């Protein structure tokens, strides 16, 4: 039993560790690198869950696009030269208490629900490109097209915000 759990346990430990390091490391560039590592471990979880399509999209979108954007912005505004001033100890303690309470609430909610989950894992093949493609272009074709409009609007918005204001 433990041996079969081992891939999940290793990946979960790495995910939690790298997520913690994102929050705790002092230099922003280190945070970004730990975040990339965290995204790769989450991609590993997708592979374990037989979601090959999501694995590919996750690696391309997060590790390929979003993280490059983060690193590019970080180097563009060159934050590594000075370390950020840290919050006061009171705020830190309050943040830890709030986060811990949230964790407690969510864990107790999950444990209170009891056995509502199906014990038998479904044998349906859902994570492949064929199944998801049929779903995406069938039932979900309108949200899919709206997503393309959203991405176009975001692209235009980013360019408009980012360009220098020359008139004034």
């Amino acid at each position, binding site marked *: 039993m433990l041996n*079969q*759990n081992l891939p*999940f346990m290793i990946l979960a430990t790495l995910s*939690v560790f790298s*997520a913690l390091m*994102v*929050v705790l490391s002092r230099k922003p560039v280190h*945070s970004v690198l730990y*975040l990339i590592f*965290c*995204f790769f471990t*989450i991609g590993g*979880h997708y592979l*374990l*869950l*037989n*979601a090959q399509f*999501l694995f590919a999209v*996750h690696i391309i*979108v*997060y590790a390929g*696009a*979003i993280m490059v*954007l*983060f690193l590019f*912005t*970080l180097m*563009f505004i060159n*934050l590594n030269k000075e370390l*950020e*001033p*840290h*919050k006061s100890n009171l705020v*830190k303690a*309050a*943040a*830890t208490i*709030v*986060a811990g309470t949230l964790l407690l609430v*969510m864990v107790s909610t*999950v444990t209170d629900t009891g056995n509502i*989950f*199906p014990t038998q*894992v*479904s*044998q*349906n093949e*859902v994570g492949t490109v064929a199944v*998801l493609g049929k779903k995406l272009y069938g*039932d*979900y074709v309108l949200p899919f097209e709206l*997503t393309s409009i*959203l*991405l176009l609007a*975001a*692209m235009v*918005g*980013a360019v408009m*915000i*980012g360009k220098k204001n020359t008139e004034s």
Partner: protein
Amino acid sequence: MNSILSVVPIEYYLGLSVILFTIGVMGVLFRRNAIIVFMCIELMLNAVNLLLTAFSTLHGEAGGQVMVFFIMAVAAAEVAVGLAILVMIYNNLRTVDIKEMNKLKW
């Protein structure tokens, strides 16, 4: 086809997602650098994505994974616009400290 869920109970995935989400919340409350706050928001989105995928595999229902796909698209749009705003803030204020961005506060 057997997935990991036949040996790992779904509660483990619930626990992992809850922990990752809480770390994201803690980062948002903890840090003053706006870029790291953004990264922690990404972390929270990923925790939710992971849980959606796990339950989608458990129930054999593809709708959950389609939803993850849409969340990823929205996250990409959000990061593009958000980082553009941050660069503009840096050009005007010479800092990305969220303590300094209080002009709209009162």
